[in-house]
């Protein structure tokens, strides 16, 4: 069963923290969650909302209907009532407004409680949490212990004040509306879970991958990678630098990578645009770099706090000239960790730029993932630095021609030799050249690396659902995986035959492995993307020669929904 709790209120009043606390409590009670936040690109004013989908099975997207809506103001009810189920439980403050319609009103005297306990407006969130836990059949034990930890430094008085507010909210429900309590958040035993968002997953993966240098300039929705890694810096030893601009960001990271440190940068489309010249430099100098690109609706400043998959082709083509690069687009949080580990290896092995694509949805939505699986993943991981070497003799050539196009890359400092990494076309030894024959050799050498990638590392799209029986086959990439998986599950339950082909290894593509997947004439293939142009479709047309007649394209800044899939089957 899936059950949606949503809270809304004015921006700047702690909605995000409250939503995340709710997710963590659900996960501590061993439920699975998927959550997402809605907020305007403002610090104060405007509407904020946070929605958590609670499930007893792993869950990877929001659902259509809201079951419990917590309204910290009237606007919340007005905006979201259309998505409420019949007899949805509406938590509200009777001193502020009274909701009407096919609902179950759960009045909670927020204003009166604030007055009584002399609390600040922000404490409404705590009351709301207490009331929410009550209506969903949980007790306050997890919330109370979170307060104990969170406010340990501020002292017993602060802890107990917070606990009192939560208790008041809890009591308000239990005293007047006990009959409406439903057992959604009963305690389970399904194993310890992490509540993590895509940016945290990338950050965690980067630490596990032994990234030593992360450089960025804040830009939503990528900024929290910078802040997360910076907060961990003292523990991990990673040098995390907020540089003056994105051009400095990537050039510094390439400098650090040249010197031998695994390095990474992150931004959204606008910042990435400033980086492309250096991505091209990474290509010709063959200096590895991992670029985290979290997309938001563009062009230009676009809609900073909403979601879109509008930069697939930009990522693929970002950088002047012809050079190899690898683009990965994780589909969910666990894949984000796995592919981040992979990205650092691939960058080192092939000495190329590797771009990890995310988007607002994946970056900011939290998902519960099993603690053991993640620990297993990172504990068994050993960095593969490819042909990075620490010593060499006088004959060393940085751009030596080899069978696979990959030359040994020497960490600067070895005393027997020296070399230059050159952004001009160069000879095998790194010196600048304009020779026609040497030019061809180096272009071919760089291209050759991707042949090895195709045979050793390229992973074909994965299939969700039963492709053999499916008459309708959706094709998508990146964060679409979450909602597509849920849609296929739901369709199967409804007795409909559908499957989803998911791309995570976006570029380069192995034509042979892909063409057969999407060329069964008895099936209806539907391209699904969170953009207006169908960029994966264009890519497949260009690279594989297939085209899509049917498309679901969403570009209003909102995430795709399951219903958009279901209605097409």
């Amino acid at each position, binding site marked *: 069963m899936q059950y949606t709790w949503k809270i809304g209120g004015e921006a700047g009043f702690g909605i995000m923290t409250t939503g995340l606390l709710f997710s963590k409590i659900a996960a501590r009670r061993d439920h699975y969650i998927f959550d997402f936040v809605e907020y305007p690109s403002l610090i104060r004013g405007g509407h904020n909302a946070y929605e958590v989908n609670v499930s007893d099975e792993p869950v990877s997207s929001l659902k259509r209907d809201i079951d419990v809506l917590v309204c910290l103001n009237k606007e919340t009810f007005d905006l979201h009532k259309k998505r409420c189920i019949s007899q949805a439980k509406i938590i509200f403050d009777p001193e502020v407004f009274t909701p009407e319609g096919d609902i179950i009103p759960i009045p909670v005297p927020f204003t009166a409680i604030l007055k009584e306990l002399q609390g600040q407006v922000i404490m409404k969130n705590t009351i709301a949490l207490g009331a929410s836990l009550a209506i969903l059949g949980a007790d306050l034990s997890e919330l109370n212990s979170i307060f104990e930890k969170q406010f340990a430094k501020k002292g017993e008085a602060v802890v107990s004040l917070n606990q009192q507010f939560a208790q008041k909210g809890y009591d308000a429900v239990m005293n007047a509306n006990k009959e409406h309590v439903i057992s959604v958040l009963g305690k389970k035993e399904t194993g310890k879970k*992490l509540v993590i968002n895509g940016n945290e997953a990338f950050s965690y993966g980067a*630490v596990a991958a032994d990234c030593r240098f992360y450089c960025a300039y804040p830009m939503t929705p990528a900024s929290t990678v910078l802040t997360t890694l910076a907060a961990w810096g003292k523990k991990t030893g990673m040098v995390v630098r907020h540089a003056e601009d994105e051009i400095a960001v990537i050039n510094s990271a390439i400098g650090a990578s040249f010197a031998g440190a695994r390095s990474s940068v992150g931004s959204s489309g606008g910042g990435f645009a400033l980086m492309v010249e250096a991505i091209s430099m990474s290509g010709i100098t063959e200096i590895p770099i991992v670029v985290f690109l979290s997309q938001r609706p563009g062009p230009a400043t676009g809609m900073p706090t909403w979601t879109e998959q509008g930069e697939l082709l930009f990522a693929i083509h970002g950088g002047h000239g012809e050079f190899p690069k690898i683009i990965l687009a994780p589909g969910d949080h666990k894949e984000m960790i796995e592919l981040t580990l992979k990205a650092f290896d691939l960058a080192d092995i092939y000495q190329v730029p590797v771009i990890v694509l995310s988007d607002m949805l994946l970056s900011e939505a939290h998902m519960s993932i099993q603690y053991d699986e993640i620990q297993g993943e990172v504990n068994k991981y050993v960095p593969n630095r490819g042909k990075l070497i620490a010593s060499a003799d006088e004959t060393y050539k940085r751009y030596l021609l080899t069978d696979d196009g990959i030359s040994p890359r020497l960490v600067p400092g070895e005393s027997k030799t020296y070399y230059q990494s050159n952004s001009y076309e160069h000879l095998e030894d790194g010196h600048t050249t304009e020779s026609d024959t040497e030019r061809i050799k180096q272009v071919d050498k760089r291209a050759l690396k991707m042949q090895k990638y195709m045979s050793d590392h390229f992973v074909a799209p994965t299939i969700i659902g039963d492709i053999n029986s499916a008459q309708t086959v959706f094709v998508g990439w990146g964060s679409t995986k979450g909602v597509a998986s849920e849609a296929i599950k739901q369709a199967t339950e409804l007795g409909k035959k559908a499957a989803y082909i998911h791309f995570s290894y976006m570029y380069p593509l192995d034509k042979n492995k892909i063409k057969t997947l999407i060329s069964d004439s008895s099936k209806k293939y539907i391209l699904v993307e969170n953009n207006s142009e169908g960029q994966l479709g264009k890519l497949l047309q260009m690279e594989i020669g297939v085209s899509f007649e049917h498309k679901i394209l969403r570009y209003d800044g909102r995430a795709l929904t399951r219903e958009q899939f279901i209605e097409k089957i």
Partner: protein
Amino acid sequence: MSTLQDFTGYKPTWCPGCGNWGIGMALKMAFVEMGMMPSSVMISFGIGCSGNMNDFINAYAMHGLHGRAIATAVGMKLANHKMPVCAVVGDGDCYGEGGNHFLHACRGNHDIKVIIHDNRVYGLTTGQVSPMAEKGQKSKSTPSGIIETPVDPLALAITQGATFVAQTFAGDTKHMVETLKKAFVHTGFAIVNVLQPCVTFEKKNTYAYYMQHVYKLDAAYDPTNKMQALAKAFEIHEEKYPLGVIYQAPRKAYHEEAVADITTPLISQTRFQDFNNLVEEFI
């Protein structure tokens, strides 16, 4: 011990008589006199006639992007702070295309030695004005004379937090070598602005011009006096060019605060593996 030969790469392609010849020689001499080896230094080259030194001098080097040499050097230093790092750049490169990096590297006091070939033109792209060109200077891109007034790089560096600001002249090898050596001894962001005649595209700021307009700071000059240093920097407006260390101040270099374990270069530190410690906040 190294020799000049150790540092000598390809034969330079600079125009005969260009100030870059002197700068290239002085840098090699300074390296030799400091007992450095091509393998013991990292150099980040900009793009320009100046940056073309990449092929003429031996070192662990990156010939990167126009304007970005300082940014690249910042990363090199943080990854391996035990190796000296310098950036060889043009005035267009450093004060124009890469002006933002210059500004912020001063603030950060990154331990990088920046050698600016200040020839007041874009040499490599055939002589358009650089941000150092005097107001009114005509060039192919400014046929009616440049409208902007020039950058005052020394004053800029001093006011933005650079901790070593020096000027020298491509016609005086000995002075260049001495100045470069002082820059390398300094810990922190060091700029050495080298007045460099471009014999092909710049007809005013010639060797003869500079001979008349430069003078050496004497032993009594106190480079720790910031206001006095600024006054020296402002002399550019009277076409007077003091040579020597104009300003120097002690301040922790960026890497000394950014690298958690300063005893070991970042690249040689042991791998962090206490992953459990990090996930606590996700529960």
